[in-house]
């Protein structure tokens, strides 16, 4: 097939892609994307995972290492069907924090640290350069296949020239559609759609070649199975370490590759698309690899040795004379290469401009945030970065000479980007991950990767001297690049993977455990890890002194005049103001920063607003200072509150005491009036009768009777005064107790005898349990007996049963003795039970009782002095009193 036709087809294809991207950009600008925002386009755009390495290299990989090529797809398959674990969170974080690249994600998570952004950018650029070179090489190789197949051989082909033109063409396309505008979110609808188209082209091409090989050359599925069984695919067997390692590596790469992150997270339109892609993308991968083995087997059959298996996809159709099919296959490979280079260079350019060029530029020209037209600066930085990335790739291709097998370079690049994995996974699942830890992990991983994998890939003697491979660096045998610490059992790939990831994770964890994160870091950490819990978004800006006009000017530089003005206008309207200048409230500054970070990255946006708010440093520290001030105020007011509570407690106690005093005073008044009444009654009768007696001329028996009355009344007065004196002594606690051992039985005997004087005419049945009364108490026997007498007398007085009974029950329990006096009368009514121990409390007619109503009050006071108590015992079938005394009264309770 004519070579010129091939070039023409290529150009037509590229023109078609330009047209697609152009039309879509136009529709996007008018806001009419429609089905272009569907899960289908999202899934297809994810297919940039399949580069030319997949398209050509997988067949070569299968021809060299059997089914091992499948591991490259198993990793992504597992990650995607397990999207609920990781991808969902990643996409949510990406959308919520307007992440523009993987470097932005890491830098934003660890406190918007630009140093981290730079490190990640460096890793990504270093890892991507050989990968881009790989794509250029594949295109050159493919051209070479066609050129050598051309029968006339009319034109000698210069591979370098082709590579240059491919690189330039790709740079032009990327710059044209990748840096058209600075969107609030770093999204490129035109490019995404073009990539989706390319995904279809490469899938159709590979399926077409595969079908042709299976049904056209081999002659059916059964034939192919026979051929596979017959083929000697280089003694394939699963090597456990390498197999597992490669699955892990490809799983890590699908998350960390800059281009995958770009289409998966940054270009994501709708989180719901991820659910569809979770199975559709693995299905795409399956379709891509379905015919790899048949093509490899048939190719090996045809050219047992010599031919480059990487090019079987092209050479098989060509050899069979299927020019059109070969053309399709070529376009498929071309698509794979170009789509990868375009997205990769956009992703890398975003990182380079946001994390390296713009911060540098701002550093060199302080005050530039409000000065020059930053929009143009950022766009120019992007364009330069794209050109630089492609130049690097081309340079690498020239230096390496395009000799290495495709698969080897691909794996080395995978391993490079996988170094970001610990910092990323740790960052979104572990709040304890710190900036220092991430930095240590990344640098360690980068160094180990470079030493064990990247530099040796140039071959002995190229980047590393040959003796380093055999002797180790500095002559230390344990530092050999392929046998670190003497681990020689692994193949170089697994070895590099093992050591770089192990040391990376170790440094990351140790660094995180041993350091303390700054305030911004902790806020961001919480916001990232708890992204699904919502409402943890850090409040970043205090009400600053930023001039809204300056902010508007700066925003215009970055977002464009129209977008910035409408943003400010709507913010002003939300604040209830007319015009374009809202107050620089914290909420407004936050939203502005979020918008800006969508264009220039979180760290840069933060730094720019910091400049305008008037503080060169991050204001969260100030916020923290304010917070600690208010914490002090809080503490102070807490102390005040405590004091106030104490005061009110004291006031309460005072009020209580006052009430008690009032009550006591009332009681005293009542007592006085009561006592004067009690004294007055006998005094009145004494006076009356003595008056009668002084008048004389009375019959002698009357005189005797009156004299007897006066005597009785005087006795009553004396008894009353005795009782009062006794009571006052007892109440003051000034009573002298004469302690000694005494038999309880004896005391009760005495009391019963003494009480017989009260209403001696009544027959009283006393029921006692004598053995239980043989207790010796150490107490004041006279006083206790007085209590007993009082209680027994009361029973004799008030028990109204026709056959009165008194039961005395003694019980000893835990060092206390209880003596119950229970009669069979009708008892004391419930509402009166609390009154009977009060002074002058008499339930029945005073005359009948003949006492002053002080008896029980005295009993109570005596028992208190004896360390015991006397109480009314309800529910005993009659009046019942329980006296409780300690067995041994040791000290005076007073």
């Amino acid at each position, binding site marked *: 097939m004519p070579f010129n036709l091939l070039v023409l087809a290529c150009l037509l294809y590229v023109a078609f892609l330009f047209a697609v991207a152009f039309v879509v950009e136009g529709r996007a600008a008018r806001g009419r994307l429609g089905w272009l925002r569907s899960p289908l386009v999202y899934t297809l755009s994810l297919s940039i995972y399949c580069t030319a390495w997949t398209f050509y290299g997988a067949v070569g990989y299968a021809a060299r290492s059997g089914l091992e090529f499948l591991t490259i797809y198993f990793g992504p398959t597992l990650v995607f069907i397990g999207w609920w674990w990781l991808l969902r969170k990643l996409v949510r974080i990406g959308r919520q924090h307007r992440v523009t690249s993987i470097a932005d994600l890491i830098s934003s998570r660890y406190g918007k640290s630009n140093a981290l952004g730079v490190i990640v950018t460096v890793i990504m650029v270093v890892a991507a350069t050989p990968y881009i070179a790989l794509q250029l090489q594949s295109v050159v190789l493919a051209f070479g296949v066609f050129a050598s197949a051309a029968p006339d051989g009319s034109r000698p082909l210069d591979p370098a020239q082709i590579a240059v033109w491919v690189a330039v063409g790709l740079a032009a396309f990327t710059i044209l559609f990748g840096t058209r505008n600075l969107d609030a979110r770093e999204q490129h609808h035109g490019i995404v759609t073009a990539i989706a188209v390319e995904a279809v082209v490469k899938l159709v091409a590979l399926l077409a070649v595969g079908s042709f090989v299976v049904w056209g050359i081999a002659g059916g599925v059964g034939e192919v199975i026979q051929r*596979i069984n017959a083929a000697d695919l280089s003694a394939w067997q699963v090597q456990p370490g390498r197999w597992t390692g490669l699955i892990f590596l490809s799983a890590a790469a699908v998350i960390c590759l800059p281009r995958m992150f770009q289409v998966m997270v940054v270009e994501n339109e709708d989180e719901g698309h991820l659910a569809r892609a979770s199975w559709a993308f693995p299905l795409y991968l*399956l379709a891509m690899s379905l015919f790899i083995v048949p093509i490899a087997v048939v190719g090996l059959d045809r050219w047992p040795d010599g031919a480059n298996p990487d090019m079987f996809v092209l050479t098989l159709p060509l050899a069979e004379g299927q020019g059109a099919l070969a053309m399709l296959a070529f376009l498929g490979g071309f698509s794979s290469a170009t789509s990868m280079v375009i997205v990769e260079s956009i992703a890398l350019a975003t990182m380079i401009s946001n994390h390296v060029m713009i911060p540098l530029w701002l550093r060199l020209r302080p005050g530039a945030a409000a000065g020059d037209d930053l929009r143009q600066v950022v766009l120019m930085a992007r364009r330069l970065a794209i050109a630089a990335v492609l130049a690097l790739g081309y340079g690498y291709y020239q230096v390496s000479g395009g000799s290495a097998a495709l698969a080897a370079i691909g794996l080395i690049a995978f391993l490079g980007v996988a170094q970001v994995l610990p910092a990323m996974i740790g960052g979104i699942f572990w709040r304890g991950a710190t900036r220092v830890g991430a930095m240590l992990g990344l640098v360690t991983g980068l160094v180990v990767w470079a030493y064990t994998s990247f530099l040796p890939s140039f071959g002995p003697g190229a980047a590393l001297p040959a003796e380093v491979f055999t002797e180790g660096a500095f002559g230390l045998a344990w530092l050999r690049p392929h046998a670190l610490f003497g681990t020689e059992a692994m193949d170089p790939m697994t070895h590099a993977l093992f050591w770089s990831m192990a040391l990376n994770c170790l440094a990351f964890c140790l660094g995180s455990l041993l350091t303390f994160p700054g305030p911004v870091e902790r806020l961001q950490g919480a916001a990232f890890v708890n992204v699904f819990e919502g409402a943890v978004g850090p409040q970043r800006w205090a009400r600053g002194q930023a001039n809204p006009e300056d902010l508007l000017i700066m925003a215009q530089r970055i977002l464009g005049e129209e977008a910035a003005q409408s943003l400010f206008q709507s913010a002003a309207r939300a604040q209830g103001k007319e015009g374009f200048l809202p107050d620089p409230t914290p909420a407004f500054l936050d939203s502005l920063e979020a918008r800006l970070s969508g264009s220039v990255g979180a760290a840069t946006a933060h730094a720019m607003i910091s400049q305008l708010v008037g503080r060169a440093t991050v204001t969260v520290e100030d916020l923290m200072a304010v917070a600690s001030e208010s914490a002090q105020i809080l503490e102070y007011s807490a102390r005040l509150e405590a004091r106030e509570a104490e005061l009110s407690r004291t006031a309460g106690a005072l009020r209580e005491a006052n009430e008690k005093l009032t009550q006591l005073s009332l009681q005293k008044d009542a007592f006085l009036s009561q006592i004067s009444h009690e004294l007055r009654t006998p005094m009145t009768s004494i006076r009356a009768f003595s008056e009668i007696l002084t008048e004389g001329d009375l019959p002698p028996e009357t005189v005797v009777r009156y004299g007897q009355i006066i005597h009785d009344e005087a006795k009553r007065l004396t008894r009353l005064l005795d009782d009062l004196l006794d009571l006052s002594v007892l109440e003051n606690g000034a009573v002298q107790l004469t302690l000694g051992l005494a038999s309880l039985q004896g005391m009760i005997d005495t009391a019963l005898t003494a009480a017989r004087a009260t209403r001696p005419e009544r027959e009283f049945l006393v029921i006692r349990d004598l053995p239980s009364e043989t207790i010796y108490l150490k107490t004041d026997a006279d006083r206790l007996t007085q209590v007993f007498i009082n209680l027994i007398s009361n029973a004799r007085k008030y028990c109204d049963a026709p056959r009165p009974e008194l039961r005395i029950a003694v019980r000893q329990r835990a060092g206390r003795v209880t003596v119950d006096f229970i009669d069979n009368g009708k008892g004391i009514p419930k509402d009166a039970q609390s009154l009977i121990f009060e002074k002058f409390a008499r339930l029945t007619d005073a005359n009948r009782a003949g006492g002053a109503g002080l008896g029980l009050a005295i009993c109570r006071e005596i028992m208190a002095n004896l360390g015991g108590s006397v109480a009314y015992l309800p529910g005993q079938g009659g009046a019942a009193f329980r006296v409780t005394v300690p067995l041994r009264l040791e000290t005076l309770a007073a």
Partner: protein
Amino acid sequence: MRRPRRPLFLARAPYRRRRLRDAARILPVLGLFLLLLPMLWAPDARMALTAGDVIYFFAVWLGLIVVAAAFAPGLSRGEGADEDED
């Protein structure tokens, strides 16, 4: 600022939704298991690739995709309903 206490028991629909999420989380583990299983195939007996190997891997792969496709609608539908509880 702890999240509010979750109810101890759920109604039937949320219960099923949570189990579906559990299943979605287990699926990649199962997949990894099945894909690592060939490591235990007798290494000496099979020095060359056979069609059986190829068919095994593609069958497992397709099976995982089918199950994931069955899960996906339920997972994305349930999202947002009681999202903060996982």
